[in-house]
């Protein structure tokens, strides 16, 4: 058996090549087969607990919010929570471990793969997972009375767009932090306030005006609104604006995460 080199030809390789993306995705998919149970459990059970606790807990006190039954309000709202949990934390911790401890990214970048392909593939994979896991609260809410509607068929797509942005944000955070311990600063000051003040458990209209204005800068709020409108009826240009914010957030985080990861991996 010979390991002789293949014939010489000058190669041209472009950006975001399908084989490079596929290679990173194949790696993730194969690895996923060994830990899918635990990830699926945490990604679906935790938001469902929030849904049931707030839905029945506050639901006993408050029967209707913003014109919706409270269980329906919370059920559609916690979809965004599920997407957030399934994307940003997975990206933050997963990419940090792969980069700093397992040195997986060093191996990948020694092949003809660049930081743009690596980050894009990672974010795509996490977004695909988030788009599926994010549907769990909706299904649970249906068990407790939420009427299914045709608009809900676009919820996985909304979840994907949101999940991609948050996955890229998680990769960015991971690339900027020097230690995994520092993640707690970001979780406490940024992620937790965002998830609590997104219109998930109570409408933003009940908050002071400055908080409502800040809510427009919270990508999660736009996901919440889109999912609610998908369930109960779209609102035309307003929903296009929500989608636009999510897309802009996704693109911004995607480019920043590529820049930060490249800086971290290349001396």
């Amino acid at each position: 058996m010979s390991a002789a080199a293949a014939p010489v030809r000058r190669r041209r390789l472009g950006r975001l090549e399908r084989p490079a993306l596929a290679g990173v995705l194949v790696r993730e998919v194969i690895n996923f087969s060994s830990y899918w149970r635990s990830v699926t459990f945490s990604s679906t059970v935790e938001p469902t607990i929030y849904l049931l606790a707030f839905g029945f807990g506050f639901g006993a006190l408050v029967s209707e919010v913003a014109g919706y039954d409270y269980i329906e309000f919370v059920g559609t709202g916690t979809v965004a929570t599920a997407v957030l949990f399934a994307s940003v934390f997975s990206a933050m911790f997963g990419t940090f471990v792969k980069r700093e401890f397992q040195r997986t990214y060093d191996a990948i970048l020694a092949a003809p793969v660049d930081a743009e392909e690596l980050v894009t593939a990672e974010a795509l994979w996490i977004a695909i997972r988030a788009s599926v896991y994010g549907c769990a609260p909706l299904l649970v809410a249906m068990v407790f009375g939420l009427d299914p509607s045709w608009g809900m068929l676009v919820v996985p797509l909304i979840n994907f767009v949101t999940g991609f942005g948050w996955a890229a944000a998680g990769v960015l955070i991971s690339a900027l932090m020097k230690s995994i311990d520092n993640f707690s600063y970001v979780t406490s000051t940024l992620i937790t306030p965002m998830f609590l003040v997104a219109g998930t458990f109570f409408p933003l209209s009940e908050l002071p005006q400055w908080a409502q204005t800040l809510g427009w800068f919270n990508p999660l709020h736009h996901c919440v609104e889109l999912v609610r409108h998908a369930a109960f009826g779209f609102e035309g240009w307003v929903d296009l604006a929500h989608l636009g914010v999510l897309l802009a957030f996704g693109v911004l985080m995607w480019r920043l995460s590529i820049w930060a990861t490249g800086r971290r991996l290349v001396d």
Partner: protein
Amino acid sequence: MAVPLAIRLRGVVKRFGPIMAVDHLDLDVHEGTCVGLLGPNGAGKSTTMKMLTAQAIPDEGELEVLGYELPGESKPARAEMGVVPQLDNLDTTLTVEQNLRVFTYLYRVPRGERREAIERALELANLYDRRDTRADKLSGGMRRRLLIARALVHQPRLVLLDEPTVGLDPQVRQELWALIDKLRSEGTSILMSTHYIEEAERLADTVMIMSHGRAVASGRPSELIAEHAGREAIEVYGPPARLREVEAGAREGGMSTRRTGTSVAILRLEDASNGGAPEGHRRAANLEDVFVLLTGEDIA
């Protein structure tokens, strides 16, 4: 006809803050040859390797790999080279075959050729019977063979080996030497960094000795030894005072010396002007003598 260069470095500089990790390095690796970068820890070997895959960007100088100019054309260059890193970065939760499969995608092996590429790599690394074993269940030697197989899955023209046998026991090291030697005999260009003298002597057609980021000598091992250390050496053992006396006497006689821990080796006996050398154990001069003479430090 001149043999084309697989690697060409000219005046390459890499700084990390105030530290000059690579200091105006020139390096040629002719196609089909094996060049050994020999030097202690911190000599700049791994930094040089990282610049060849554009995982470090030089501050000055020219780099060319397989005709591609780096760092701008590093991606197509990486498609035609394989890298065996010093640190084990295998996917520990994947099996041997799965580790290779992932890299058939990353190295752009055409879909119809992936199975054959994996089979070939398994056979080359003698891991055929372990294809379904998870990487974290492999021994150290098997993991290193898998790293080599992974770097060869796409039949590269050039292989970079960064300290390929560090930390392995002698028996496993011999197995890997045989594997590397086989690659060399089949015409693959190899750049190998090492701080094992014997490894450089056995495997490299040409050795470049590096110290503090600089190349201090380059040539065939036998030529380096003949030029810098002569043919024979005498090892003299004794208490420190005696060793100092021997060193002084040797230098007066025009011979070179080096310390070897508990002894002094007197080199270049053929340069002796007073016709004599002290009593001691005679041996052939070796590459380690050359290294210490040129760099003033024992190999780490």
